[in-house]
C-alpha cells in the first residue's frame, strides 16, 4: 500500500496503479476519456492532468512542478503529493472540454448516450457553457461498422478506447484510426466488419455517443431505465451484469466490474441473449391435469395439491420412486428449497442434477491466446449454475445422480413421481426422457417453454427467467455470486423461489438473501457469501 | 260564475281552493326563489346570472326542476333507508304546513252584498301562533333526521349543529312573539294583523323595533340561512346534512328551505308589519272586503314577502357564516338578555296599560339600545364576533415583553 496525498488529503492506495485510478477509487471525480483501467494507457486525452510536487533540480527541495502531468500515466509512489484542485488543472479541464466540443455536433437530444455521456457530465462539471468557436464545425461521417454497431464519427473524441479494446482484449483488431490530426477518425477496413464475439464492449467503453448499439438504438432514453445487479446466465463464466429495464421490459444488459471473473467485459452472446425473456410463448400459468381436463389452479391452493399428490405416490409406490431433476438454470436457493421439499416428503427420493448444455469449445480472448493468459473466456458450458446445483445435490446426499444417470434410470422405470425443472431458453428434452417420463404416474414439470414433457405433465409450473428471480449462481470456478431481480414476472406467473419457498414449508416472502442465510446454517460454502457485499460501483 | 261564487261562500270550499292556489303559487315562488337567488348573487358579484334557459333565463327553474327529477336518485348502501327517504319530505311538508294559517287578505265579501262571506285564510285557529311555533319547531326535524339518516359523520355533525342552533334561537323568538301577543292579547294571526290597523293602531314594528330586529335575526337562524347556515357548511362538512342526498330528495330539501323562508317572512310581516295592510290606502283596510280588495291585499302581502325574500338573499350574499361559538354566544349572551329585558319592560307597560303608547314603547327601546351599547362598550364583551378577552397564555407575556 502506498500513501499519497491528493489535494491535501492523504489516501492509501494499491502499489503501481496510476494516480488517476487511485484518485477515482478514493472518490475524486477526475475527468478522463482515454484512460480505462482495463486497457493500456495512452495519455492522449490530456484531461486528467494534475499538478505534482517534484524535487527542485538544484535545491532538491520539494515544490510544485511548473508543468502538469497526466495522472493516468503517472504511477503512484509512496509519499507522492499531487493536486487536482489547482487553477492550472481546472483551466486545463475547461480548455479541454472546449476543445472536445469544438466539433461535437451537440445532438444530445437524439443521441442514445445522452444521460450516461461523459462529455455531457464533464462539460457540465468542468466545462464552460459556451463555445468560443464561431466557425463551422467539422462533420465527420456516420458509419455502419458492424452488424451490431454504429459509429458516429462526428461525436467521437478520439480517446481510442475502442481501438485499444479491439487490439488488447478481443484481440481482433478490426478497428483502426484513419487520417491524422483534426481529421482523424475511427474506422474499420471496409468489408471486415466489427463482429467479434465481444464487440458489444466497444459501446460500453466509448465515453461518448460515438459507438452505439443497434440493438438498443432509439429504444429508450437511459434516464428512464432502472437497473438491477445481476449475473449473466449465458455460460458458466458468470459475468456480473446490470440489467437495465424500463416498463418491466429488459432493454439491455451491461457488464459490471467483477475482478477476476469478467473484469469490465461481457460477450455478445450474453449481451444479446436475453430476448427469450419476453417471448410470448412462455409458460406463465400453472396447469393441472384433473382427469382429462386441464385447469389453472389458484397459486394459493397449489401447495396443498402438490403435497397431496406426492404423498399419494409415496404411499402407493414408496419414497424411493420419487425423483427431482434440478436444472442448472435454477438459482442455488431454488434448488435447495425444491430438494428440501422433496426430501421431506420422500427421504429416499433421488436428487438429479439437470442437463448441462455444452456448445463448442471454450473461447479465450484476446483471440489466439491460451486459457491461462486469457483476459476473458466464453465457456462452453451454457448454463450459469451447474456447480451450484451439484453443490446442493452433494449437500443433500443420499441418492443422487447426474443427468445421464437420471435419463437411464428413468428409462428403466425407476421413478413414479418426478419433478423436472427446465428453464432453458431452447428445446432441451431428450427423446428417451420424454418417452420414459410419459409413462409415470406423477410428473411435475417446471419449465419456461412448452416441451415434449409439458404435454405429459400432470402439473406444469412456469419457470421464470433469471431477470425475474433472485438468488445466486455458482460459476465454473466455484464463485458464488448473488443476483437481483430486475423485472416482475409475467402476469399469472409467480417467482419460482416464491412457490418453492411455500412448498418447502416457509411462510412469507421469498428472498435470495433470506434463503441463503438458511442455507448457510447447513452448507459451509454459503457461509461466506451469505452476506456478500455488493460489488462496488466502478467507473465505466 | 254565480254558482262558483255560491260554492265559494262556504269557508271550507274557499279554504280548499285557496290552499290549492297558494300551494301552486308557493311552489312556483319557491322555484323562482332559486332563480332569483342566483340572479341576485350574480348581480351583487357584477355578473348576469342564469340567462341561457329561456328569455333572461326565466326557464331556468324548470330546467333545474327537470334536472332534479331526471338525475339518478342514489340511496347509499349504508344509510338508514326509511328515515333517509322521509327526511326531505318532512322538511318540505313542515315548511309548507305553515301556509295554512297565513292571513292573505282578511275578510272577503264575495258577492258584493256587504256581508262578509269568508276569510281569506285557509284556516284561522284561535291559537294560530302556537300552531306556527309548533310547525316551525318541527321543521328542524327534516334537517336532523336527514343528517342522522345519512349515516355520515359530517352530516351528523350538521344535524347536531342544526339542533343546537334551533334550540338556541327558538327561545329569543318565542320571547319576541310573546311581546306581540302581550301587546295585542291575541293568538290568531288575522287578529294580530288586524290589531295593527285602523285608527290609532300602528304596526308593531313602530312599538317594538328592537323586538322586530331580534325577530329577523332569529328568523335567519330558524331558516338556516346565511350567516346562520351552520348545518350546511361546505367547507367544514362537505355539504352538511344533505351530503348523501341527490336528485329529487336533494331538491325537496331545497324547496323546503325556501318554503320555510316564505312562511317565516309572512309570519314576521303579520306580526310586525301589518300583514296585508298599508296605511292610508282605503281598500287595504279591514273595512274593504270586496274581491278586488282581497286581490289587492294578497298582492301587498306577497310583495312584502318578496321584499323579505330579497332581504334574505341580500344578507346571504353579503355576510359570511358565523363560527359556531359565535352563533351560540349571540343567542345566549346577546339576544336572550335583551329579549328578557324587553319582556320585563312590556310586562310593566302592560300593567300600566301603556303597551300601545308610542312614547313609552319607543322610549323603552331607546333606553335598551343605549344600555346594550354601554354594556358592549364598557365590558368589552362582544355579543358576536371575536372572543375578545381570552386569557393570556403563560408564554405569551414573555414573547410580548421581548
Amino acid at each position, binding site marked *: 500500500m502506498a500513501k499519497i496525498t491528493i489535494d491535501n488529503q492523504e489516501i492509501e492506495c494499491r502499489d503501481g496503479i496510476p494516480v488517476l485510478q487511485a484518485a477515482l477509487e478514493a472518490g475524486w471525480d477526475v475527468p478522463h476519456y482515454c484512460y480505462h483501467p482495463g486497457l493500456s494507457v495512452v*495519455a492522449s486525452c490530456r484531461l486528467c492532468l494534475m499538478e505534482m510536487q517534484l524535487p527542485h533540480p538544484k535545491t532538491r527541495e520539494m515544490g510544485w512542478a511548473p508543468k502538469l502531468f497526466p495522472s493516468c500515466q503517472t504511477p503512484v509512489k509512496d509519499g507522492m503529493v499531487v493536486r487536482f484542485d489547482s487553477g492550472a488543472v481546472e483551466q486545463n479541464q475547461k480548455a479541454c472540454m472546449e476543445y472536445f466540443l469544438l466539433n461535437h455536433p451537440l445532438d444530445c437530444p437524439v443521441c442514445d448516450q445522452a444521460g450516461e455521456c461523459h462529455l455531457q457530465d464533464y462539460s457540465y462539471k468542468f466545462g464552460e457553457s459556451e463555445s468560443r468557436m464561431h466557425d463551422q464545425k467539422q462533420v465527420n461521417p456516420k458509419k455502419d461498422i458492424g452488424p451490431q454497431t454504429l459509429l458516429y464519427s462526428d461525436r467521437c473524441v*478520439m480517446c481510442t478506447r475502442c481501438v485499444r479494446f479491439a487490439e488488447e482484449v478481443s484481440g481482433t483488431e478490426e478497428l483502426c484510426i484513419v487520417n491524422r490530426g483534426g481529421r482523424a477518425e475511427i474506422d474499420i477496413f471496409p468489408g471486415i466488419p466489427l463482429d467479434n464475439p465481444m464487440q458489444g464492449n466497444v459501446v460500453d467503453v466509448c465515453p461518448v455517443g460515438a459507438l452505439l448499439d443497434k440493438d438498443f438504438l432509439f429504444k429508450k432514453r437511459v434516464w428512464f431505465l432502472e437497473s438491477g445487479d445481476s449475473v449473466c446466465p449465458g455460460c458458466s463464466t458468470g459475468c456480473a451484469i446490470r440489467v437495465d429495464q424500463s416498463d418491466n421490459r429488459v432493454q439491455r444488459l451491461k457488464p459490471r466490474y467483477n475482478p477476476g471473473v469478467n473484469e469490465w467485459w461481457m460477450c455478445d452472446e450474453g449481451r444479446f441473449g436475453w430476448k427469450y425473456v419476453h417471448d410470448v410463448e412462455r409458460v406463465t400459468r400453472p396447469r393441472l391435469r384433473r382427469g382429462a381436463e386441464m385447469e389453472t389452479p389458484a397459486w394459493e391452493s397449489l401447495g396443498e395439491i402438490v403435497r397431496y399428490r406426492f404423498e399419494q405416490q409415496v404411499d402407493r409406490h414408496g419414497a424411493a420412486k420419487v425423483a427431482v431433476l434440478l436444472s442448472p438454470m435454477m438459482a442455488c436457493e431454488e434448488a435447495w428449497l425444491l430438494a428440501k421439499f422433496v426430501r421431506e416428503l420422500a427421504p429416499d427420493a433421488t436428487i438429479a442434477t439437470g442437463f448441462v448444455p455444452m456448445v463448442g469449445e471454450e473461447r479465450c480472448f484476446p483471440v489466439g491466446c491460451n486459457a491461462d493468459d486469457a483476459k476473458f473466456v466464453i465457456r462452453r458450458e451454457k448454463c450459469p449454475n451447474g456447480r451450484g446445483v451439484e453443490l446442493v445435490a452433494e449437500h443433500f446426499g443420499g441418492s443422487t445422480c447426474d443427468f445421464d444417470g437420471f435419463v437411464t434410470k428413468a428409462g428403466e422405470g425407476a421413478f413414479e413421481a418426478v419433478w423436472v425443472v427446465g428453464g432453458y431458453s431452447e428445446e432441451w428434452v431428450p427423446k428417451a426422457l420424454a418417452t420414459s417420463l410419459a409413462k409415470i404416474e406423477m410428473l411435475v414439470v417446471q419449465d419456461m417453454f412448452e416441451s415434449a414433457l409439458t404435454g405429459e405433465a400432470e402439473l406444469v409450473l412456469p419457470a421464470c427467467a433469471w431477470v425475474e428471480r433472485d438468488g445466486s449462481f455458482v460459476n465454473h470456478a466455484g464463485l458464488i455470486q448473488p443476483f437481483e431481480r430486475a423485472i416482475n414476472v409475467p402476469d399469472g406467473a409467480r417467482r419460482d423461489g416464491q412457490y418453492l419457498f411455500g412448498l418447502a414449508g416457509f411462510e412469507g416472502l421469498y428472498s435470495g438473501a433470506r434463503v441463503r442465510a438458511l442455507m448457510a446454517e447447513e452448507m459451509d460454502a454459503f457461509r461466506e457469501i451469505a452476506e456478500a457485499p455488493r460489488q462496488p460501483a466502478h467507473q465505466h | 260564475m254565480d254558482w262558483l261564487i255560491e260554492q265559494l261562500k262556504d269557508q271550507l270550499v274557499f279554504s280548499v281552493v285557496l290552499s290549492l292556489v297558494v300551494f301552486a303559487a308557493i311552489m312556483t315562488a319557491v322555484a323562482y326563489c332559486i332563480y332569483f337567488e342566483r340572479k341576485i348573487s350574480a348581480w351583487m358579484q357584477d355578473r348576469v346570472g342564469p340567462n341561457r334557459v329561456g328569455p333572461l333565463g326565466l326557464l331556468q327553474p324548470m330546467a333545474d326542476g327537470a334536472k332534479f327529477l331526471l338525475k339518478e336518485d342514489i340511496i347509499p348502501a349504508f344509510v338508514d333507508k326509511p328515515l333517509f327517504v322521509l327526511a326531505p319530505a318532512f322538511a318540505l311538508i313542515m315548511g309548507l304546513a305553515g301556509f295554512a294559517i297565513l292571513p292573505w287578505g282578511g275578510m272577503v265579501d264575495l258577492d258584493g252584498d256587504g256581508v262578509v262571506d269568508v276569510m281569506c285564510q285557509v284556516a284561522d285557529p284561535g291559537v294560530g301562533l302556537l300552531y306556527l311555533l309548533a310547525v316551525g319547531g318541527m321543521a328542524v326535524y327534516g334537517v336532523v333526521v336527514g343528517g342522522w339518516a345519512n349515516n355520515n359523520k359530517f352530516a351528523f355533525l350538521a344535524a347536531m349543529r342544526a339542533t343546537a342552533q334551533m334550540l338556541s334561537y327558538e327561545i329569543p323568538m318565542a320571547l319576541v312573539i310573546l311581546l306581540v301577543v302581550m301587546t295585542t292579547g291575541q293568538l290568531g294571526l288575522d287578529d294580530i294583523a288586524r290589531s295593527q290597523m285602523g285608527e290609532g293602531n300602528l304596526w308593531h314594528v313602530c312599538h317594538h323595533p328592537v323586538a322586530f330586529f331580534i325577530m329577523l335575526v332569529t328568523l335567519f337562524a330558524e331558516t338556516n340561512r346565511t350567516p346562520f347556515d351552520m348545518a350546511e357548511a361546505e367547507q367544514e362538512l362537505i355539504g352538511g346534512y344533505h351530503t348523501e342526498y341527490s336528485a329529487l330528495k336533494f331538491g325537496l330539501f331545497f324547496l323546503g328551505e325556501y318554503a320555510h323562508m316564505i312562511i317565516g317572512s309572512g309570519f314576521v310581516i303579520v306580526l310586525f308589519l301589518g300583514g296585508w295592510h298599508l296605511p292610508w290606502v282605503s281598500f287595504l283596510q279591514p273595512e274593504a272586503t270586496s274581491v278586488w280588495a282581497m286581490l289587492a291585499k294578497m298582492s301587498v302581502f306577497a310583495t312584502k314577502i318578496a321584499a323579505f325574500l330579497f332581504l334574505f338573499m341580500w344578507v346571504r350574499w353579503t355576510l359570511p357564516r358565523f363560527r359556531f361559538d359565535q352563533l351560540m354566544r349571540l343567542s345566549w349572551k346577546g339576544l336572550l338578555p335583551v329579549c328578557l329585558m324587553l319582556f320585563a319592560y312590556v310586562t310593566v307597560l302592560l300593567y300600566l296599560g301603556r303597551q300601545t303608547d308610542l312614547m313609552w314603547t319607543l322610549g323603552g327601546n331607546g333606553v335598551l339600545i343605549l344600555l346594550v351599547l354601554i354594556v358592549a362598550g364598557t365590558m368589552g364583551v362582544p355579543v358576536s364576533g371575536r372572543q375578545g378577552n381570552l386569557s393570556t397564555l403563560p408564554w405569551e407575556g414573555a414573547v410580548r415583553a421581548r
Partner: protein
Amino acid sequence: MGSYEPVLLKNRGVEGSCTLKVHRAGGGYAGAEKALKLSSDEVIEEVKKANLRGRGGAGFPAGVKWSFLPKDREKTILCVNGDESEPPTFSNRVLMESDPHMLIEGIIIAAYATRSQVAYVYLRVEFHEQFHILQLAIDEAYAAGLLGKDVLGSGFDLDVYVHRGAGAYVCGEETGLIESLEGKRGWPRIKPPFPAVEGAFGLPTVVNNVETLANLPHIMTRGADWFQSIGAGSSTGPKLFCLSGPVNRPGCFEGAMDMTCEELIYGDDYGRGMVDDVGVKAVFPGGISMGVLTGDELGMKMDFDDPRNFGLLGLGTAAAVVVDVETDMRDVLLNVSRFYSHESCGQCTQCREGTSWMYRIASRIAMGAGRIEDLDLLEQVSGRMGMMPGYSICGLPDGAAFPIRGLVQKFRTEYEEHMGRQRDGRAEAVLRVLN
C-alpha cells in the same frame, strides 16, 4: 568571422563529393578508425567532453543521451533522424547531398559507441535524390567493408538501412519516428519509458540527427578541445545555418554559433542582404517552430541560449526564413497555422483541436474577416498547448504555439490595423457564409 573554415561542408562543390574516393581523400573514415580502436565508453566520454549538443532542435547533449542506455542491454538500435520536415530547414539535405560518407562515418562511430548492430536512417520521403545518393554511398561502404560484418576489421558488425518515411512532420519526433519505423502511424509515444530504455521494437534505442552524427568524425579526429574551441559558452562546434526567403544569397552555411541573426542575413559570407534592399519585417530564425523575431530584434545571437531571451523556444534547426516588409503578416499566420494543423498527429486533444481551430481562425483573418477577439483567442489557444506546460505528449504543439503566439503578440498592431480597415460586419457576414 570570415576566417571560418568549413568542416561539415568542406566537400560541397567538390566534384564527386558523394563518392568514397573523394571522402577518403579528405581524410574520411579516419575518425571511425580511431573510434573503433577505443572502447565504446571512451568514445562516449569524448563526445561528452566535446559537449556535442543535438542539432535536431532540442539541443540535448548527444553523449549524455547515449549514457542513458541501460548498462546490461543486449541489443541497441540506432536511429538516424533524417526526417527533416521543419520548414525552412534543409541542412541535412545539403549534408547528404554533399558528403553522405561523412554521415555514414558518423553512424559507425555512434553505433560503436552505443553498441548498436543496426542503424536505421529514417529519411523523409521527399528526399528522393538524397535517398539515392545516400543509398549508393551505403552500397559503396558495404562493398568497401565499412559496413556489414566486421567493420574495418574491428570485429564490430553494423548494418545500416535506410528507412523512408511517407510524409509526416511528426515522425521527426523521436518516438514518432520509432513508431513509424515499426510500421505504425507516427504517433509519438508517452514517456516514460524513454527510448533509451525501451524504444524501437522494445529495445533500447538512440535517435540522433544527421547533422549531429556528421560532427562525430571530426570530434574523433580533431578532438573534443577543437570542438569546444569553435563558438562560445555551451554553444560550441560547427553548425549549419540555413537561410531562405527574399535574401540575396539564400542557402546553407557553416559557421560557429557566435554570430547574430543580422550577420546571417547581411553578412558577406552569408545572406548578403535583402533582395532590392527591402527591409526585414520578421525572421523565423530557427525554423518556424521556434518562434518569430521582428525586424528590430535581429541582434539575437544564433546560439542555444540567446533565443530564449527573445521569447523563442530555442535555436531549433538554425534555419532562418526572412519575411520582408512587403509581406502581409496575415498570410504568414495562415501558412504557419496551416502547417501545424496539417501536421498535428491527432493524439492529444489540445493539439488536435487547437491547431485546426487556430487554422480556421487564421484563414478567416487572412480572408479579411478577422475580429479583434480572434487575436486574444489565438493567444489563448496557443497558450493552452505544448509539452512544456504538460498539455501534450510530444513537442509539436510547442512548435505550433510559439510562432503563432509570437506572431500575434509581436505583430498585433498590424493585425489590428487590418481588422480596423475591414468593413463593419464583414467578419459576421463571412462567418454566416462559411457556416
